[in-house]
């Protein structure tokens, strides 16, 4: 089962093999959760979004038509679940939702780890400050490692818009981190058409 491709597992799952369903979820859950985590910047919200995405995937498997890769399809569901969770979050008061990121529970005995954690925190804060549309595109590219075409499919936007959103998201991140490091504002360039 573990050596089967996603397509083979989907076929078995739709034919009624419960182990194939479980193997598909086991194979993709960590990556889906990582994407939700970076979109939402909260472990608790990411857990909720990932859970909802997994439920939706299991329910929708019989209607999966194979036009895109299973992974792309699953990322689409997880991205929508994360965006939906973000909207719900905006509507509710945030009391006790900030939590300790379990991945930060590490040996803090060395300066190297401190520096690494500091950088990680800075990057996470910077990512959280990126406007949602740009953040989602950057996360799908740099965290999920999807190509532009897959991201366009997931977000339902033209590939040119994906390029723009990724460029703007990275620019925002780079500027925030540059200011944090005391490098100062980047030189402003006029926007001009390269053609």
């Amino acid at each position: 089962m573990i050596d089967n491709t996603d397509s083979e597992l989907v076929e078995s799952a739709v034919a009624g093999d419960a182990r194939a369903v479980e193997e598909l979820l086991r194979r993709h859950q960590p990556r889906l959760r990582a994407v939700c985590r970076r979109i939402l910047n909260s472990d608790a919200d990411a857990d909720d979004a990932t859970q909802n995405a997994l439920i939706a995937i299991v329910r929708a498997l019989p209607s999966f038509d194979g036009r895109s890769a299973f992974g792309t399809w699953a990322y689409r569901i997880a991205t929508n679940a994360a965006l939906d969770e973000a909207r719900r979050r905006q509507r509710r008061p945030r009391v006790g939702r900030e939590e300790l990121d379990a991945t930060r529970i590490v040996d803090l005995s060395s300066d190297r780890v401190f520096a690494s954690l500091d950088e990680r925190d800075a990057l996470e804060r910077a990512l959280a400050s990126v406007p949602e549309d740009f953040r989602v595109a950057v996360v799908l590219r740099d965290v999920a490692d999807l190509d532009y075409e897959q991201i366009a499919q997931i977000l339902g936007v033209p590939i040119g818009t994906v390029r723009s959103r990724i460029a703007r998201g990275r620019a925002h991140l780079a500027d925030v981190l540059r200011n944090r490091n005391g490098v100062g504002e980047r030189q402003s360039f006029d926007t001009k058409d390269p053609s």
Partner: protein
Amino acid sequence: MNDTPDKRTTDDAVDVVDWWASRVVDREVEFADVPADLRAQVQSRAADFAAVRTGLSAIGTPGVIDDIAIARAIRTAKTAPRSSWRRIGGPLSMAAALIGVIAIGITAIGRDSRSSDDLATADQPMMSSPLAKTIDTEAPASESQEVIEAAGAAESEVMSSTGESVVIADMVELGRLTNGWWTTPPTMSPAAMCPLAEGMRRVDMDVMFDGIPAEIHLGPSNLKVVALSDCMVLAGITP
């Protein structure tokens, strides 16, 4: 390059140096493709973007498999088996005629139109999916008792579902099905497969609309039927 930055909208208004730098980092273009007068700026910016990408890749490393979340998802799906599809039948409803029905490009987007009889027979294999039956009756082989107990303890946190499956032939049937949803809302799904507009939620219902697998997004002032394959809007209703 014929796909240069589009500055006509806010969404696409991107700094041209950033645009080139981002594509260089993603190896969509070679550095030699960058206009000569921008190369120094693009090179500097690309170095920043590469550092950002490396950092994000590092913090985005997938964690461990969460067996509890997986078991809970399967268990929750099991409580809402898609065992059969319901056809929206009966005489034409006057109520359906009273609501404003807006069909959005059902034919314009080139969907094949099939009769209701075709739908009722052609979609039968999907209507009684072995997956639904299996989920309903069989626990995953490797699911431990501990995981099952943990999932059970957390079950109250998970939304419940009616898990209904409906075949809708046309706008009249759609109107008949959804009439009353703004006074008595249907059960909502925990997640959608297509992007939800602000204020909209996915109705927890598997839908076959005009022969196309779809989902319904319901908001306070309208609803949309959206194709699962490409998220195109197939139809909409404004009450």
